[in-house]
């Protein structure tokens, strides 16, 4: 028989996910990228795209971060630093592989010092393709990852008022 739904558990679980979804602190690690993706990540924090309206803040230490934005095909030298950084992060943690190098090694696939994608080293929750992906794509990827944590159907409130005449499919992320 399905356990009786205890209202108090529901509220606590809802509160927890609400907190995690609305304050995703981000850490960026470049494991051998051509820094095209890195400057796009930085430009998501600057005035035009500004991820802080979603609560995203670039953190300095892996201990403070929830999401690891990993870019670049993992080079042999950066490999064990990436693993150590991933282990230093506290649960619950997520990894987003940004750029085609992070997904599959991209144009550097097959180079002797490159291990290929990030998922060969640490588990990855979301992939954002592109060389480099546009800042909008990075924001879309992060928001999609956050939406996946919410119970089905609900979404993060759009941080900006959506102008009236925008077509339907644009507003539903």
């Amino acid at each position, binding site marked *: 028989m399905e356990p009786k739904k205890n209202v108090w558990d529901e509220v606590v679980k809802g509160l927890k996910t609400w907190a995690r979804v609305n304050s995703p602190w981000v850490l960026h690690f470049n494991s051998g990228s051509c820094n095209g993706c890195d400057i796009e990540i930085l430009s998501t924090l600057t005035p035009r795209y500004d991820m802080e309206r979603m609560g995203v803040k670039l953190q300095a230490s892996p201990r403070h971060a929830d999401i690891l934005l990993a870019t670049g095909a993992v080079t042999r030298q950066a490999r064990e630093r990436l693993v150590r950084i991933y282990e230093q992060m506290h649960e619950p943690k997520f990894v987003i592989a940004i750029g085609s190098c992070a997904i599959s090694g991209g144009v*550097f696939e*097959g180079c002797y010092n490159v291990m290929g994608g990030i998922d060969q080293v640490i588990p990855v929750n979301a992939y954002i393709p592109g060389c480099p992906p546009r800042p909008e794509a990075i924001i879309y990827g992060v928001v999609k990852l956050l939406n996946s944590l919410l119970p089905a159907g609900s979404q993060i409130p759009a941080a900006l008022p959506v102008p009236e005449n925008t077509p339907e499919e644009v507003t539903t992320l």
Partner: protein
Amino acid sequence: MPENLAPKRFTIPIGPQHPALKEPGHFQFTVDGEVVTSAYVRLGYAHRGIEKAAEERTWIQNLYLIERICGICSHIHAMAYCLAVESLANVEAPPRAQAIRVLVAELERIHSHFLWIGVSAHEAGFETLFMYSWRDRETVMDLLEGLTGNRVNYSANLLGGVKFDLDQAQMDSIRKGVDFLEERTHHYLDVIMHDSTFLQRTRGIGVMTTAQAEVMGAVGPTARASNVKRDLRVEAPYSAYKTFPVQMALDTRGDLEARFEVRLNELFESFRLIRQILDNLPEGPLVARIPRRIPAGEAVVRLEAPRGEVYYFVKGNGSDKPERLKVRTPTICNLTSVIRLAVGHQLADVPMILAGIDPCFSCNDRMVQVRDAATDSQKMLTWEQLRQHGIDFYRSKAK
């Protein structure tokens, strides 16, 4: 406190993951209190083995590989590679293509310098300048996107020419964008020369004398800030720089403030050049035919990237794959000199000194300078060994 950690001195690892570096580089600074006593760099985190990969790809496939050596100066790398291959096959790109290449190179220089102003302001802790300069940088990113379709890695080059053309509307939008950027650059130049707290972090810090810059082989704005006359666009003009000459922006003080001012003064030069190119863009085709098999031979090409002189060496053996491709990037020359400058400065100045040369590890990681034994940074060397090694190194070097 465990005993091996109660030393007078620490080794402060900066990197490979560090908010000061947007790319992986591992610097170890031994500090006595707040003063740096010895410094060395261990890079190689962004080394992907591009030179080997270039030997297994055809000339055309290499173009896409070369563009991704560095995300910020991808056009300069592609342009250098194309010039090298064209000189091997002694094909000359048509004048219109050369002018467009120089136009995109100058736009990229603006984009790279604005990016650099923001990053080094962020290193100094001046967030507002970081936010403002990156907001203005979006203008030049839009121009580049309008021209080539992509904000970064815009692959404008083809072997023998350029991929796109400029129509009147694009030219007007470039002119409008350049006017706005020029007015903003005046504002930033004023901020950098007069903002007292910013001057406290840049004036008289990381001073490099002309002799030091000469001996250490510093290149680009870092060298020009120490009055070393090295600018390939003036000394050895290539492609369209012959028809559109450029003046060199020089400074004599050689400290961080001078490096800021040289880069900003260079921007005015780029704005003037872009307007000049737009006014008299030569007519003609966009691409010259180039054979699939490039004849055997060697070619050396040197270009002025935003960070300094980039050197390309290509050797072909008549097949459709290069036999050897060598790239020497500007950051490695500046890095060896700047690491020696860090000694004696406060730890707080070190990120600013590193940012002063606008390091680009992705370019640079094809090559690096390692000074300490290949020890894993986590293994605790006894501090005494570390410090002694540092001091011996510098005493022998200074002889």
